[in-house]
Each structure stands twice: as structure tokens, then as C-alpha cells.
């Protein structure tokens, strides 16, 4: 942040009262200002912002959903959109422009891509969390390298969960909010249904426990 921008908003930083209601503005302008605030908050953050955080910058009576709807209406035809993910909202570019973004950043072929194995492990964790390395080994029939797990963790897609009740108390892996955002899921319930019949599914779970 430059000195100039810091200077411009001294009142906010001193904890002066933030005017949510904007009673001095006519209705129309007030609504525009609220839309602007929400848009600004979302623009400034790279992670989803929840409803309660957004509600703090607009009037008590204002509906965050309606404001969001109005913002979305103005965004039609833009290359970015306001998406609802992981229980909040965030700005993101539309998928059709991914090529352009990659070309501009000169990412070439490396991109954000996952190897097939990384993707497989991530799926296994998503469906079977919390699961430890031994559990993953039973699913894949081989050791899952710590490096691979570290890469997933570095991308903030997985985190440490409860300890597994086995010798050595290894920690298990669970997925994170970033995981939901990355794969455009509202919650874990949006994971595609596994195509296994119930008996098989419980059988899979039982072998993992052993």
C-alpha cells in the first residue's frame, strides 16, 4: 500500500464509526453505494467472503442476496463473474478465458495442473476423510509419497485432521475450504455420488478401518 492510499482513509483506521446505513443519501444512491461496497470487498479478497462479513458493510435492513443479484445482473457479458462457493461469494474469471490468462502469465504447459496420481489421492481424501497415509495405501495398493501429500498441502487443498488411532498416532488428512473453491463446490455434498452400491461402499470403509 502506498503512503497516499494510506492517508486517504485515516478515519477508518482510527476506528471512527463506519456509516453502514447511509441515511443521508436518497434510496437509489444508497443502494448503489452498498452494491459498490460489496463489490469492493469481494474484489479485494481472493477467497470467498461469507454473508455475515458482507452484511457488516451495508445497512441493517439491506438484503445481501438482492445486492449480489443486482451486481451479477451488471456483470453479464463481462469475462469475470460473481460465484457462490464454499458458503460465500467471490469474483473469478470465466473458465473460457483460462487460455488467455495462462498465455499472458507465460505459464506454458506447467499450469496449475495435477498429475493423475495427485488427483486420485485428492479424490480419495475428499471421499474418505479423515484418512491417513496407511488408509491411502490400502486404497491405492502402494505407498503414497510424502512429497505428493506435501504438494497438495502446499496448494492448501488438504490439511491435518484428527489423529488416526494407530501406533505412532499419524495425523489424517482432510480437505480445506480452498479445495471447495478450486473445484467449485458449495460443500462436500456436491461431490459426485460414488457409483457403488451401499454394501460395497461399506465394505470399502471397513477395509480402510483395519
Amino acid at each position, binding site marked *: 500500500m502506498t503512503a497516499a492510499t494510506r492517508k486517504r482513509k485515516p478515519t477508518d483506521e482510527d476506528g471512527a464509526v463506519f456509516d453502514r446505513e447511509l441515511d443521508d443519501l436518497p434510496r437509489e444512491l444508497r443502494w448503489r453505494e452498498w452494491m459498490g461496497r460489496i463489490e469492493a470487498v469481494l474484489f479485494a479478497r481472493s477467497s470467498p467472503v*461469507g*454473508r*455475515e462479513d458482507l*452484511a457488516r458493510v451495508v445497512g441493517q435492513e439491506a438484503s445481501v442476496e438482492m445486492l449480489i443479484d443486482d451486481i451479477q445482473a451488471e456483470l453479464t457479458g463481462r469475462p469475470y463473474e460473481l460465484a457462490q462457493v464454499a*458458503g460465500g461469494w467471490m469474483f473469478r474469471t470465466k473458465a473460457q478465458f483460462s487460455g488467455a490468462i495462462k498465455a499472458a502469465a507465460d505459464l506454458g504447459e506447467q499450469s496449475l495442473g495435477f498429475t493423475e496420481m495427485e488427483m486420485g489421492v485428492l479424490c480419495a481424501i475428499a471421499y474418505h*476423510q*479423515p484418512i491417513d497415509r496407511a488408509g491411502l495405501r490400502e486404497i491405492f495398493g502402494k505407498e503414497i509419497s510424502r512429497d505428493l501429500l506435501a504438494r497438495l498441502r502446499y496448494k492448501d487443498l488438504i*490439511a*491435518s*485432521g*484428527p*489423529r*488416526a*488411532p494407530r*501406533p505412532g*498416532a499419524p*495425523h*489424517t488428512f*482432510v480437505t*480445506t475450504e480452498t479445495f471447495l473453491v478450486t473445484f467449485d463446490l458449495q*460443500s*462436500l*455434498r456436491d461431490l459426485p*455420488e460414488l457409483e457403488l452400491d451401499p454394501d460395497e*461402499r*461399506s465394505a470399502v*470403509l471397513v477395509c480402510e*478401518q483395519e
Partner: protein
Amino acid sequence: MTYQSAAISNDLSSLPKLPDWVTSGRAETLDTVAFRSGATLTVLGQLVSDPRHGVPVKLLASRLALSAATATSKLEGRLAREADIRDAYHLTPPGETRGPDGDLLAFWREAVRLRLGGPGEIADLVGADFAREVGIWLDTGLERARTHGPLAGCMVVLQAVLQADDRAERVACLLSDLVLTRVLNWKTVLPVSARRLTKSALRDLNAKGQGAELAVQARILESIEETIQLARDLARRAKALRTVAPKLRAKGSDAAVDLFLTEDAIAPASMLSPYIYGTTIPMTSRAARRFCDRLVELGVARELTGRPTFRLYGIAP
């Protein structure tokens, strides 16, 4: 050294129980369900409200929270078993992520700790998406309960929440429990709604299908009947524990016994040591282990997991 195992008494004659004419019939119409629920709720109300019956209400609530978590986990399409959920909650080190199963149990454990005076707490628990409507839904439910009976009130809130979001099963069940608690004037929230519900029953209820309301009410009624069994059982086990309590001479054993009377599962390594949970009484991890082993020897508690390590102890079945 051998200990004489304390007999868990079978003398239940003093505790209120369901008369045969309630348990013998089948719930075939809304009228029978309403009639039977009246009798059932009266008995459960007596059990949990009158301290003379010696029902450890907090323990009951904490056990029911685990059942509710297991039930809602199934409703949400996850496959966690009761033991998995309990492990996920109890084996997460502080500061780490609990994962979906542990979070679900945490949700229900917070639910049974709700103080009913504070609508703010309920709003915090159900999350911002529902915070605004919660008050209205509860009021509608209570109003309906006043005119049509408690279970009808539960139906109204279940429907209202599922209509707003058909994936909010846990919130729907929680609000249904809150309606029961308030109408019946219980001091603790007892999560009984979720326990026997199935996905299809809720789907029918949401679609206002024929007989859906009867099916759901009958399931909640069943769950309340089971809760009476559980309450009587826990009263018996609590009595056995209280009887042997004077024999326990470990430092802090009184506080530890109290903990066993409020929590359904206790990890000696984290909940009894270095300090007994909720107190400032210190206990070494060795003393904690010995204490739990002693309770098992005395026949008043049991090890819940069957594991040689990461054991969890409790007096509840």
C-alpha cells in the same frame, strides 16, 4: 487383586416408565401418534426434570448428540459410523481441522449446550444463511405446537427449513428439537428428532407427500421412546457409579466422576490430564489411565473402542 464388581441394580421400579398400553399399539394415524406422544413426552419430561430420579441429564444429552450426529451424517449422504464420528471429534489435536465428521459432532454438542434464553447463540450455531429466519421459524413452530401439539410444531419447522434449503437437515432437526424443548419446558436441549429420520422420509415431507407427516412423526415418537429407555438405563449406571465413588481415593476422583456423569466418552490422556476437563484439578496421565481402569474393574464404566491405545471410556452403553 480382585474387586467385587458393583452390581448395576435392576431395581427400576421407582423410575417412571412407559405403560404397556402406549408401547403395545402401532402408530397408524396422526391421532394415535398424537395420543401416544403425549404419554411418551410426559414420561420423558418427568425423567429429565425431576432430579430425584437421578437421570444424568447432561450425559444423556451428550449421548444423544452423538446419535444425532450419526443420523445427520447419514442424512447428509456421508457414511461415517458412530465410532468414526466419535474418534474424529476426540482425536483431533487442538488447532487442527476436525474434518466433516468431527465438525458435525461438534455442532450437536454445541446444540445441547445452548442456553435457550439467547437467540444469538442459536443464530451463531446455524450459520449466517439461516440466522435471519430462525426466530420466525421457531415462533411458527411454537405457535403450531400450542394449537396442535408438540410433534405438529416439529413438523412445521422441519418443513420450513427444508423448504428454504433441502440440504439443511441438521438445522431442520435442531430447530425441531428446540421447539420440543421450549414447548415442554425442558432445561436442556435433547436432540431426539434426527435419530430415526431417513432421507426418504424427509424428502416426502418436503414434497408434502401423502402420509409423509405421519411417517416422520412416528419416527420421532420412536426416538423419544428409545430416549426414555436410554434415560432409565443411564440413571441406573449413574447410580452404580455414584455408589462406588466413595471407594475411589485418587486425587481429584470426585471431579473425574462428575466428568463421567456429563460426558459420554472420555479420553483419559486429554480430558483427565494434565487437568481434569473444566476444572483446575491436576491429574497425571498415569493416574488418569489408572482411574479409568479402576472404573472398568469396578464394573461401572467400559472402554468404548476396543483398542489397546487411544482408548475412550464412558458409562453410557
